[in-house]
Structures are given as C-alpha cells and as structure tokens.
C-alpha cells in the first residue's frame, strides 16, 4: 500500500529554492491529515550538508543523492535518481514545484512511474484519504479538481501560492545511490548564462509592475522601472507591448506568456484582454491604473485609479519612496 507524502526539493548552486520550503510545508499539512510521514528527495552535488534544513519546514526524512552527474540539473540524471528512490519506497503522494525545473522533471516522472500529475496547482487537499488537486486550466479561465487512480498521486505546486511555515521535524538525512547509467545521460548543459539584473523572475516575484499599450512606447517603461526599483519589483508587460517590440518576450504576462502570482500586481496602461487577465488573476492584490474607466482590468482590480498613468505613477513612486524610507 502506497504510503507517505513526498516532495522533490529544488536547489541551485547549493542553496534551496524557496519553493522547496513551500513544498515541505504543504506536504506536512497533507501528511498530518493522513497521519503519515513527510519525505523529501534532494539531488545535486555537494548538497548533503544543506539537506537537514528541510526538517525546519516539517520534513521527517530527506533522501539525498549526491553525485557530480546531478549538477547542474539535467532531466536524464534527476529523473533517473528520483524514479529509483520513489519506486523503492512507494509513496502515496509526490509533490514538486511548478518551476521550470519541477515542470520538466515532474512530466518525465509521469512517464517513468506510469502515473498521473496535476500541473501548477493552486490548492491541494485530502478528500476521502486521497489527494484532491485544484488547478487553473485555460490559464485560469476555469479550474479543475483533479483526482487520481494510480500512485504516486503527483502534483506540481505553483510557486508563491503555498505558504512556507516553520514546523520543526527530524529532517533525518539518508543517503542513497542514484545508480546513474552514464550511457543514459544524453543531455549536457554547456553553459549557464545568468541574468545579471538581480531582479526576480516574473514567476517568482513578490511585486510586479506591468505595462501595456498605454505606455505608448519603449521609453514609457522608464517610469515603471523607477517604481519597480523602489520595491525591488520585476517589470512585466502585456502581449500588445511585447508584440510591438517594446519589451522582450521574457517579460510577457498572460496566457501565452508567463502565469504569475505575486503578492502585488500593478497593471499600468493595460486594458485587460482576457488572455492577459488569465495570466495574472491569481495575484493576491491587483492594482490597475488606466485612463479608460471601462477597461476590463478594473473588473479584476482590488484598487483602481482612473487617470493618466504618466501623472499617477511618478507621484505614486515618490510616495512609496517616502513610506519605505
């Protein structure tokens, strides 16, 4: 009988990604309902030393695979290692992050474990002793309640949605041999080109300042950059702005761009086309600044200002600087 709530922890350069703690806390909650253990899998090179940190967030046991071939992340190596330890232990539930790495890995594991996965969940709970995963579909235009008929029941959790709560458990470290077959490690990371801006990725940002067609051109974004700098926020854009060439592809928020869930989303000069709303409506607080009172963005906004953003935003920046000084 499959038992236990497992997570795949995520680290980069020897430090845990925040999602790992969100996963641990969520797994703890589920495991307490079931009266079962929380176990984590941690893969990397030279990571044994950090494994115990997961105990702080409710993990009972951490299975660690420590091998040079596990750094940097490749699908081949990590999927083989995780599948091996999961098959040996038969957990009931397996949670990963819906980060770029977690999405890549979780989907490959579905193939290896011949099971089912609910991607990018915004809520998970136990119903009748089984996992019930709730996830946006059609980029949030509707939601699905996912149930499972195989084990492990897999879900990937949207970053920034589940709280990381301290709840100290043993966090006992158990090493395992991933038994990697070098012949099956086909992909190679030749280069990691780091973004040196120091800004959080849109999918991980706490605050996003986003601009649309109302910015009137690439120069218009200067006032958004200035506002973003006050909070260490990340600047996003609507599809209209990206398609016009004002902002890079990687800045696009929406159904065909990034799906984001910051604590605060400030939409400036964005009318709120349905495909944009789909990408940001799971933000906790939404602010809209737009001169068109009829713009659909106001139907999603917690706070709205109907006015010229070029007059409002600089004043807002000034005020925030004062408040945060």
């Amino acid at each position, binding site marked *: 009988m499959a038992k236990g709530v497992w997570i795949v922890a995520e680290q980069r350069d020897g430090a845990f990604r925040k999602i790992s703690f969100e996963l641990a806390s969520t797994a703890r909650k589920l495991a307490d309902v079931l009266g079962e253990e929380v176990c984590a899998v941690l893969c990397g090179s030279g990571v044994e030393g950090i494994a115990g940190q997961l105990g702080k967030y409710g993990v009972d046991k951490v299975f660690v695979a420590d091998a040079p071939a596990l750094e*940097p992340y490749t*699908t*081949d190596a990590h999927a083989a290692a995780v599948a091996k330890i999961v098959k040996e232990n038969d957990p009931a539930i397996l949670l990963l992050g819906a*980060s*770029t790495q977690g*999405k890549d890995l979780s*989907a*490959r594991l*579905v193939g*290896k474990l*011949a*099971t*089912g*996965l609910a*991607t*990018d969940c915004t809520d998970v709970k136990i119903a009748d002793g089984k996992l019930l995963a709730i996830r*946006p579909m*059609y*980029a*949030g*235009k*509707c*939601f*699905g*309640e*996912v*149930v*499972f*008929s195989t084990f492990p029941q*897999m879900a990937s959790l949207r970053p920034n949605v589940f709280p990381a709560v301290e709840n100290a458990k043993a966090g006992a470290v158990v090493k395992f041999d991933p038994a990697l077959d070098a012949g099956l490690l*086909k992909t*190679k990371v*030749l*280069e990691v*080109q*780091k*973004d040196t801006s120091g800004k959080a*990725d849109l999918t991980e940002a706490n605050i996003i300042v986003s601009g649309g067609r109302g910015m009137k051109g690439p120069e218009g974004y200067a006032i958004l950059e200035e506002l973003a700098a006050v909070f260490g926020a990340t600047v996003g854009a609507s599809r209209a702005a990206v398609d016009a060439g004002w902002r890079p*592809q990687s800045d*696009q928020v929406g*159904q*065909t761009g990034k*799906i984001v869930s910051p604590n*605060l989303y400030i939409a400036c000069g964005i009318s709120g086309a*349905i*495909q944009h709303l789909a990408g940001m*409506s799971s933000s906790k607080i*939404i602010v*809209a600044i737009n001169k068109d009172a009829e713009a659909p963005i106001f139907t*999603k906004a*917690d*706070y*709205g*200002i109907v006015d010229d953003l070029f007059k*409002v935003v600089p*004043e*807002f920046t000034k*005020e925030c600087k004062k*408040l*945060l000084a």
Partner: protein
Amino acid sequence: MNIVACVKQVPDTEAQIKVKPDGSGIEEGGIKWVMNTYDEFGVEEALRLKEKNGGEVTIVTIGPARAMETIRTALAMGADKGIHICDPAFDGADAYATASALAAAIKGIPHDIIFCGQRAIDDDSGQVGAVLAELLGIPQVTVITKLEFAGGAIKAIRPIEGAQLLIECPLPCLVTAQKGLNEPRYASLPGIMKAKRKPVDVKDLAALGVTVTANAKVAKFIPPPARAAGKIICGDDPAMKARELARLLREEAKVI
C-alpha cells in the same frame, strides 16, 4: 531528416470559457478552434529544419473530427503528411494516455527529432512532450527559445528562472517549443491548395493497440473564484490619488 511535429487543436486565446452547469466540462458552443500557439512554433521550427537539412515533416494530432483542420493548417504551412488519431475514448484522457497513443503512432515511423508545444493552452498541463520522450526512450529539452542543429546533435536555449541554459542533446530527441523560438509563417494560397492532396492517415485506438486510462482525471470543472469588487480611488488630483493608493496598499492590503 525525419521530423515529427505534434499539434493540438485548442480554443483560441480570446475565447470565453464557460463551465457546464454540471461541471463535467466546458461549453464548446461558439468557440473558435485553432492550432495551439506553442505547437505552431514547433511546426515552424520543424519546417525550417527540413528546409535546411532536407527530409520530411509528419504532423501528428489527437482529437475529434474537427482536429483535421489543424493538420491541414500544418500541411498548408509546408508539412508533408499527417496522422490523425481520432477516437471518442480520448475525451478526458490525461497526459499519460495521450502520450501513449502518440508514442504508438510515432514508433511506427522514423523519427530523428520530435517537436511539441511546451504546453497546450487549454488544459495547460505541459506534460505530454516529456512523457512521450520517456515512452520512446529518447532525451528531451523542454521549453526552448532557440535551436541549432549540427553534427548529429542539437544545441538549444532553455530559459529558466534568472538564467538561460545552453543545452546539447544528440538525436533522436524531443524538444518542446516556447514563444520566441520563431515567427510562424502563414499558409500561402498554393500551400492551402496543395495541403488538400497531402496524405493523412486516420487511426483509432484499436489500430494503435493502446487503451486509454486516466491516471489523473478532472473530476469537476469549476468557474474561477470570483474576486470581490474593487475600490476605485476617486478625485481630480492624480497626486492625491497616488498618495491614497500608497496608503491603502500599506495600511489596508499590507503588501508594501
């Protein structure tokens, strides 16, 4: 070079999605069906690869009869032939079932490189490509924005949080396309005419020898949670409204 591109027919991004009253699915009436955006990038890249290196592009889809339009669109763009897996049993199939059927169809044809979209914009699962790669026993590079092919291997750019990876992978392999990979071409009129005569093989599950299971199943579709009505900050002076906004975010919402 034998190239396969998997495509899915989905509601276009402007579609309003309404959940059926019994929660069993979405209302399909009035929806405009199009090729999944990310699959279009895959098809375009497949065609560019063929134009440079020679070979053939096969389009594979799973879907009801209407999905044939999507195959024809890809053929009109320049692909050579199609496989349409059409069986009512696929209604509600999950990624594992979908990938199993695709794998059964693709195993029977030569494949050096397979393209999928990084996710379909209907169920947003983003799993099928990777599961398919696993079932075929080939490596994957997912969510790529650049592709080069030389000397029997690809080099691809994969953006991750705060960085871009340059990844090398030998053929045969599977890649999933992200926006930014290319600008998909429009089908030309002669292309559309030619597409009508290109071969499309229609197969059902029995022909593929697979059964459909749903390891993960959407038991219920629900409308998105409603957001409480927001507060419009009134006044004539933009500076005053900006100050009030800052105050509310600080004192009421407590997010700054």
